[in-house]
């Protein structure tokens, strides 16, 4: 159980509280304007602006960035239920599947390769 002692609890609680407060605050604010669907985007932009101001005054704490890296590493979990649904919906498309999948594969993988080549050359 030693791994529990190695966890940086204040950093975890602080990082999670920061993310939850900004997201829920932005959703609440946008609900007042009848656009709750814009809450996540507003939360992202307002946290980005706040942290950029913080960064100009004082260096961003490395513990915040490290803890967030750990959270982002597990972010695939949040997409699991909806991703499983997309697989089921695809199966139900019937004879349209080959054309649909063809468009999806071409329009995703060619850009992925082209953007990576461009970025490798120009960055």
């Amino acid at each position: 159980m030693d791994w529990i002692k190695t966890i940086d609890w204040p950093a975890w609680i602080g990082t999670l509280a920061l993310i939850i407060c900004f997201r829920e605050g932005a959703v609440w604010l946008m609900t007042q304007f009848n656009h709750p669907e814009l809450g996540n985007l507003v939360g992202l932009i307002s946290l980005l602006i706040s942290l950029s101001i913080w960064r100009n005054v004082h260096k961003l704490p490395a513990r915040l960035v490290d803890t967030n890296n750990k959270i982002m590493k597990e972010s695939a979990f949040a997409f699991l239920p909806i991703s499983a649904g997309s697989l089921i919906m695809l199966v139900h498309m019937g004879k349209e599947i080959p054309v649909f999948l063809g468009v999806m594969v071409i329009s995703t993988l060619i850009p992925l390769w082209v953007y990576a080549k461009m970025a490798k050359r120009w960055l």
Partner: protein
Amino acid sequence: MMLAVLYGFILTLFAYLIAKPLNKRLPQVPVIVIGMFFIIGLLFVFGIPYESYMTQVNPLFNHLLGYVTVALAIPLAAMRYDDLPLKAIVGILVFASISAVALPMGLAYLLHMSDASIMAFATRAVTTPIAINIATLLHAPLTLVILIVILSGVIGAAFSPFILRHINDERASGLALGLAAHAIGTAQAWQRGSVAGRYAAFGMAINAVFTAIWLPTFILYLQKM
């Protein structure tokens, strides 16, 4: 009801926790792809229809998706921008945003798909929460939009180890994953490492915000003409 939500959450967590060690053995297959097959398998074993599972867990996972979106602000704020060539980055972003809309819409048009399907392809490369906003503005069918966004993320993440195997630059690989495969690509980039993850988050967020501004404006302008 609370118990049903808890069961749904535990089932998802279980699928994720067994997908993770398998992903360590098969690093070519993204954890999300392994996990979604486990979820479908577990739902089948327990005889739970996907619709009732989704009804139970959707409110909770909507919150989690929101937190993941907002959490992207932290790597973006922590990134060093002073060593990035601004002109090149802007060039790549503009090219990516326009081509990510034009290519799938053009292909769908050439293959004689319905107008609604063509419109649904417009937001292929934009992260789900923002794609839903754009699709609502464009009157595109939302379920199809979500399927396209999720599936393109899964395809991009699943084939990325193969497509990016000769790139040998984690900044370029990350940026391409964020631009071409949005949040799922970004989750996959974090599996590669924090450099790829940060660049993916940057590409995804900037692409989403930029597309959310120009695409509805452009399409609504065309419709008014």
